[in-house]
């Protein structure tokens, strides 16, 4: 991370999907690292399938091949604050319930088409929720600023993140920073050795992993 990258980080943190940025913010809570809950092999298999629904195998390998299930558990255990860990864990149950409600089938038994349909709905729900959350957070920040200016104290509240946002973020982060994601889906040049700031680009060319 370079100093001039700071802006990118902040842009991510205030933009729609808060990959990294969200981790950055939730990381700021400084809660002790006590998750209390552990992940089972079944959870990992479940998260692999959830990840695969978000980033499936196409001409190149998908999220499961990038082992995003176990990656998610590492990130949740090590990087999430305690409250966020709870939300993530309960999210597994919520995903199953939502699948049961919609298709009367367990998530692991559902077809890829059913999973995709459910996730498309959840994504919509999570986006709407994220908008509310970002409005709320902005309002709280403004109140804090006002109170600070007046010399008053104000306890800033925040809305919990949506569990589906967490799953999607960790899938994208886990996939695109994995070896297969970076080198087979994206293009990775380990030692570019030169800089060309005027490279022709045509639609369909893969992005470089940066």
């Amino acid at each position, binding site marked *: 991370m370079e100093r001039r990258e700071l802006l990118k980080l902040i842009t991510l943190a205030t933009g729609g999907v808060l990959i990294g940025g969200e981790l950055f913010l939730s990381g700021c809570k400084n809660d002790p690292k006590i998750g209390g809950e552990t992940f089972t092999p079944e959870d990992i298999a479940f998260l692999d399938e959830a990840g695969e629904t978000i980033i*499936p195998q196409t001409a190149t390998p998908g999220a499961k091949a990038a082992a995003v299930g176990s990656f998610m558990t590492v990130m949740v255990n*090590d990087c999430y604050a305690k409250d966020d860990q709870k939300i993530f864990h309960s999210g597994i149950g919520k995903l199953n319930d939502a699948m049961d409600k919609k298709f009367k089938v367990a998530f692991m038994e559902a077809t890829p088409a059913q999973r995709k349909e459910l996730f498309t709905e959840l994504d919509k729900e999570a986006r709407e929720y994220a908008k509310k959350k970002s409005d709320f957070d902005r309002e709280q920040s403004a109140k804090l600023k006002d109170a600070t200016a007046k010399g008053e104290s104000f306890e800033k509240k925040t809305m919990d993140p949506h569990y589906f946002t967490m799953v999607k973020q960790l899938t994208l982060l886990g996939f695109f920073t994995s070896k297969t994601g970076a080198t087979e889906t994206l293009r990775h040049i380990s030692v570019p050795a030169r800089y060309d700031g*005027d490279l022709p*680009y045509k639609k369909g060319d893969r992005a470089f992993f940066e």
Partner: protein
Amino acid sequence: MADNYFDAIVIGSGISGGWAAKELTEKGLTVMMLERGRNIEHVKDYVNAQKDLWEFPHRGQRTQQMIEDYPVLKRDYPLNETVLDMWVKDKESPYTETKPFSWFRGYHVGGRSLTWGRQSYRFNPADFEANLKEGIGVDWPIRYEDIAPWYSHAEKFAGIQGNRDGLSVLPDGDYLPAIEMNIVEKDVAKRLKEHYKGTRHMIMGRSANITQPKPEQNRLNCQYRDRCWRGCPYGAYFSTQSATLPAAMATKRLTLRPFSIVTKILYDKDTKRATGVEVLDAQTNQTVVYKSKIVFVNASAFNSTWVLMNSATDIWPGGLGSSSGELGHNVMDHHFRLGASGQAEGYDDKYYFGRRPSGIYIPRFRNWDGDKRNYVRGFGYQGSASRSRWSRDVAEFSVGAELKEALTEPGSWSVGITAFGEMLPYHDNKISLDKSKKDKWGLPVLNMDVEIKENEKNMRVDMMADAKEMLEAAGLKNVSTYDGGYEVGMGIHEMGTARMGRDPKTSVLNGHNQVWDAPNVFVTDGAAMTSASCVNPSLTYMALTARAADFAVSELKKGNL
């Protein structure tokens, strides 16, 4: 005892300490360079330099454990899984804060020369005159002409890539061929120049990354990996390890001693000279004394002042250099973390290859060339244009193959700029010894009592508004501003606390960086700064150090020290 005697002692091995060691040994002196932290050997100890991101368990992100272990570093971007070994362990090295102050330190051989941003600019002639003209702080005891040859000396050796842009606000230096702007940056630069009729400029950032090999230094040119922070296995950016340390070692007159915390400079009140230093071995807890003819204090601004505050306290309770009442005062940093970004349309058929180690720079234009604001001094911007990556939001696709395909391509172009502003030297912005708290070696810690004031706050209004106005003038769309909030210290440009000046009553150092009360003690890091300019300061430390070393050796030869 003979083993403990050197012509010169250099306290600290970062950017300025490395330069002191190189200059002094090359001029024939035997030098002991003392570093409080561990050694980091060039290339061999850059443990993360060759790793790909997927080799890090958290892909570079911060963990809750890291957050707990690094209560200071966590406040900003430096806390990162890939460079953890390059920062001090906060818990082992506490300090206290009367007002919030972020102090990001590197306690190891090379110091922050390994993690610096590498932006390398000269102060301009007005920077050295502004204090006098505006009646702020004290006058610099030197002028641009005094330091200009030393800027050249530093640039040639360190290797700075950049263009000679011919701007009075940002004097040109001796540069290696510049890294190129990308196509969008070039167009934005052109439009800014037209719109502001040549009063504002976007130039390629000048940085200490070499674009041609330096075989005499065993350094290869930049490979465009953009992983400088992890240590460069090619030696392509300037650091103590890549440049000054090997030069000093080649003379066979340098001794480097890691794990050596200098607790005080030893002072002889009869001769009014320092006689050496007392060292606490950080591994054995043994006290060792080293003697020398001269002492260069390059422990990084605040720690240099900490050493002075702990020295000669039997004569001056406030420490060596405190007779002026200015030791520890006039703290400065560069205030930043705000700016703007916007989208560039019409470049979908353009991309770039390679990852540059430097972006663009917009030099100061406020309070310059007849412009007059409700504050003094000015600010510059760093930034870049790039296409967004996989981490962007794709509103059209929620999940599945379509989302994957969309994220496989680069996204829209955007330009982002972040402002860096000058902070004035205020006497009441100070650091002091906090004797109520001790570190793990039982040494008193520093207390920080620093804030930005009206001048900086007024400047910040322009820093944000001008960013937006310029990006819009350059034709960018959806321009939005941001202010990430600034806490003093976050600029990682601590300056002041032992300022240079013309009068021993109002300054700690004279025009040759000698402590007024001990002429064989030289302080040539950020502590010496009389004002801050708005440009990145490290090149100025290099030049001041080389200049002071030259003076010190000539004075030694004359028998004046």
